[in-house]
């Protein structure tokens, strides 16, 4: 990488990186790294440079480096970002503070414990529960473009958890199911092939679910894939309220059930 550098100016930028080494210290600290500044570098490039040439002990997650895998989420100057999609040039010449994603326990350096989120994906049953069983020989499920459009936006979630780091409700109380999990539940509830809305309702409509949300809206603002989880949650609130009204007005359900 260094040999092909277009920028020979020798410009540098400072990274202030959160370090936590539980086997060495009880308290975290910040390490400063002076890294080369390149117009086309993202924060992840700078971190990789640190790990490759300056401090091999720095630990962090990354994979695709192109904003589709959701692995490299970190706090950059206090904002949840994908470090592969955050350019140094937007901060230069000021130093950049890099910390682990907010509201998650820190295992080591920039690596957080994401078990809570993974359990919630299980809790909301974030997979297709087919309305009608089909064997492979019966062929594929058919879905019109209009039916696809209903849930497509919510299917764009890459499970990067930036929304959890933006949500003050989750920050105060990690029991909250959270934006991504509810958006994914909505993605399946709105899928014409899916028949699992009732199964998910118990978790989604619980006091840890949609009703914890106070519509701060920051989850939508930080989402790198424009999933708009806040909208998903509010729409789920409307659906839940409709369900309640229907259960009162038509106690035994309609013939369609």
């Amino acid at each position, binding site marked *: 990488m260094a040999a092909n550098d277009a920028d020979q100016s020798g410009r540098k930028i400072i990274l202030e990186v959160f370090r936590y080494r539980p086997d060495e210290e009880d308290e975290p600290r910040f390490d400063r790294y002076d890294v080369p500044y390149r117009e086309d570098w993202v924060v992840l490039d700078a971190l990789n440079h640190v790990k490759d040439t300056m401090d091999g002990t720095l630990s962090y997650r990354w994979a695709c480096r192109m904003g589709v895998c959701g692995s490299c989420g970190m706090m950059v100057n206090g904002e949840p970002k994908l470090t592969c999609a955050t350019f140094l040039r937007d901060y230069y010449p000021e130093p950049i503070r890099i910390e682990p994603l907010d509201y998650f326990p*820190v295992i080591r350096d920039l690596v957080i414990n994401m078990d809570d989120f993974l359990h919630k994906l299980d809790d909301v049953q974030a997979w297709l529960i087919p309305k009608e069983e089909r064997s492979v020989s019966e062929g594929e499920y058919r879905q019109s473009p209009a039916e696809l459009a209903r849930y497509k936006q919510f299917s764009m979630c890459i499970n990067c958890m930036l929304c959890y780091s933006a949500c003050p409700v989750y920050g105060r109380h990690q029991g909250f199911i959270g934006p991504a999990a509810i958006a994914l539940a909505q993605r399946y509830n709105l899928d014409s092939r899916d028949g699992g809305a009732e199964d998910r309702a118990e978790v989604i409509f619980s006091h840890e679910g949609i009703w914890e949300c106070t519509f701060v809206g920051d989850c939508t603002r930080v989402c790198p894939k424009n999933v*708009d989880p806040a909208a998903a949650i509010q729409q789920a609130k409307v659906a839940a309220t409709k369900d309640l009204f229907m259960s009162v007005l038509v106690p035994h359900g309609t013939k369609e059930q």
Partner: protein
Amino acid sequence: MSNQSAARKSKEYVRPMPVTWWLNRKTYFLFMVRELTCLFVGGYALFLLVLLAQANDADAFAAMLNSPLSVVLHLVALLMVLYHSITWINLTSKVMVVWRREDRVSPKWIAAANYVVWVALSLSIFGICWKIAGT
């Protein structure tokens, strides 16, 4: 849980959320302002109830409205209620999704429809009060 993972878990660092969390980000601050405007919305509703309870006593009714303090409070309440209404009407498109085949009706139309209804209702109520005050 194995000894190793139990030991690891107890050494995980949990960062506390400060009580001043809502001052740390502009969007958080604006959210708190929006939430606090509810106090003014509810407060004015209570004020109206007290006012109407004195509808038969013209002097007491006027006294509640005529003082400079009342005017200032009304202006503040008006600003708060306007902020409340505008922020919430702008969010209606998130809640109300109207589909035309494969496309969503633009969020702007949803918000616009709500604004029209809001303004129409407000003008009607204002007109009614004006007429009553005039008689």
